[in-house]
């Protein structure tokens, strides 16, 4: 910042040069400040673009079907209210307005006969329709979808942790013929994109009679090559001395894995668990193909089906979208650092 001033002061001796230098420094500082303003303005533009769809989703989910059809759209869900004789606000639906007479025909929201009220007694008040959530939840077996997803996620996670730890331990610490070749084969399979093995997997699962079962969503994902890879890399960093000491103390192979290696690998295990949970929770193409009845259908497929069936009930679709992302979003805000780190290392984009 003061570089320019120093240079100017060196170049020319005397007060004039020093004053010029100070002016240059002030100009430099002003430019820097302007730059900072630009940087923050752009970053905030980014925030607005990233957040807007979420706000729009939530606000839509709290509107009435009529309010959704109003253009320009409202940001805060509102309803029409009339104040009764007892001073209580009562929500009404406006059936028609008569501008010349200055009256409107309204029906009370809780039922009852239509009535005519003066327009100036009709008030707009904030009204969040949380009932949309209950309605969406009831219109499709979302409780079932939720349970299915939670069950599939938990089984996949548990199974994957067991198989990955064992395999990674073998790859990292044991010696057997063909170890590196097998490991390389595993790694090369990681490069094959899911659509390539989708069709043959379907045929294999159909042979097992597993189409439209939980197994079809769980068993093929019980071993995840990237988890094995990540755990192996970590296991390799555990010093040999620890192994030697444990062996001398008569520790068995499995006890060593269980009591020494795993407690030292908590961070890696957490990272592996996070990306397994996130990718299983959000997976779509696989369960879309492998399931066809609501009894085993997971949440994402259920939400997709619901959105396609609803057509124009946008408030219900948005409510369903909100409750289907809620668990992960809440978890994300509680542990964003670990989640970002885990997903960034895994290369899984969601």
């Amino acid at each position, binding site marked *: 910042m003061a570089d320019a001033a120093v240079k100017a002061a060196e170049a020319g001796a005397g007060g004039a040069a020093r004053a010029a230098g100070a002016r240059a420094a002030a100009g430099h500082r002003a430019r820097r400040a302007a730059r900072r303003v630009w940087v923050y303005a752009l970053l905030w533009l980014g925030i607005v673009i990233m*957040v807007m769809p979420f706000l729009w989703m939530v606000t839509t989910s709290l509107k009435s079907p009529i309010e959704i059809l109003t253009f320009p759209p409202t940001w805060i869900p509102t309803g029409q209210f009339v104040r009764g004789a007892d001073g209580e606000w009562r929500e009404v639906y406006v059936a028609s307005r008569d501008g010349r007479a200055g009256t409107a025909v309204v029906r009370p929201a809780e039922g009852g006969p239509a009535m005519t009220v003066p327009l100036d007694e009709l008030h707009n008040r904030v009204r969040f329709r949380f009932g949309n959530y209950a309605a969406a939840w009831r219109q499709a077996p979302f409780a079932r979808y939720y349970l299915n997803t939670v069950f599939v996620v938990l089984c996949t996670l548990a199974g994957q942790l067991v198989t990955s730890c064992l395999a990674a331990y073998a790859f990292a610490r044991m010696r057997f013929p063909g170890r590196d070749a097998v490991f390389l084969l595993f790694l090369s399979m990681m490069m094959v*994109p899911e659509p390539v093995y989708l069709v043959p997997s379907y*045929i294999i699962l159909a042979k097992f009679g597993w189409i439209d079962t939980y197994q079809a969503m769980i068993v093929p994902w019980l071993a995840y090559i990237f988890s094995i890879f990540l755990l192996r890399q970590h296991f390799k960093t555990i010093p040999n001395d620890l*192994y030697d000491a444990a*062996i001398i103390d008569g520790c068995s192979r499995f006890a060593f894995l269980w009591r020494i290696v795993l407690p030292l690998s908590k961070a890696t295990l957490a990272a592996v668990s996070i990306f397994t949970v996130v990718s299983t929770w*959000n997976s779509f193409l696989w369960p879309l193909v492998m399931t066809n009845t609501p009894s085993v259908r997971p949440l994402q497929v259920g939400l997709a089906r619901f959105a396609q069936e609803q057509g124009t009930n946008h408030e219900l679709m948005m409510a369903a979208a909100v409750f*289907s992302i809620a668990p992960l979003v809440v978890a994300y805000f509680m542990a964003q650092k670990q989640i970002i780190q885990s997903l960034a290392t895994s290369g899984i984009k969601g």
Partner: protein
Amino acid sequence: MDWLTELRRKRFMDPATAVLYLVPAAAIIAVFRLAPIASAFLVSFFDVRMGRLRGFIGLAHYTRLFQDPVFWSSLGTTAYYVIGVVPLSLFLALFAAVLLNQRIRALGFYRTVYFLPVVTSLVAVSVVWKWIFHPRLGLLNYVITLSGGRALQWLEEPRGVFDMIAGAAGWTWWPGWLAGPSLALVAVVIVSVWRGIGYNIVIFLAGLQNIPDQYYEAARIDGASPRQMFWRITWPLLSPTTFYVLLSTTIVSFQVFTQIYLMTGPPIGGPMGTTKVTVYYLFEKGFDAGGNMGYASAVALVLFAIILSLTLLQRRVVEQRVHY
């Protein structure tokens, strides 16, 4: 310490035990990865309908595939999509990461918000964006008309964007082959960039933070301008990261499915088939219309060949320029 070596060997060099530890993972991978990948080739040579093998037909699927105009147009659509998403996501993510790398206060806040869409399911994201793009009631058209623009049809617009731009510029004639991707596909591109950019920002930011400060200090003393510092220091030292982002975004983009499945149509792949990408075509052939799985498998393998060769090509080309 010979006895220790001996003990170590006994404990850890016993192939039988190793196999025991490896079996659960290896069995799953063999049955559900290795076998399907290997049989993807086999399946593509057979007549398979609804999961039932009906007979060997050799290369018939492939010869039909290469004469299938829908397949070719799906490849073209996918190419448009990839060419749209990859540079846009790369450039915007790098730009955001450079902004974030300037001693920003509350850096974690920005990173958390930018990354949020990555955690949300693509299904929910697609459902929400379809509503934002709604031609009559959507938020986007409202914002556009508010700022004086003309409302667009977005996901329902089959016209090519270059054609539309030429039309808006007053040109009455524009060659059909230069029409470009439909506005509907561009809308899908926008959603995909929005969804994935946080991931790329985080990767770029990590790459930027790995560049030692001394380089910048030295350059500053030598009187380098910010632009010079970016092109002479940041860009070359960031190239491994850029390469990774380029590669991973390309591979993911070629497999686009969910956004198309949920945002376009009905019928899916619309309007006028301008958003029918290859993976959706594969799905439609293999699981939707009659379940011609042999044909779908052939589609999958051609797609895989393209992804693989592009990956290798990118690796080749970029490796000469990447500075590790």
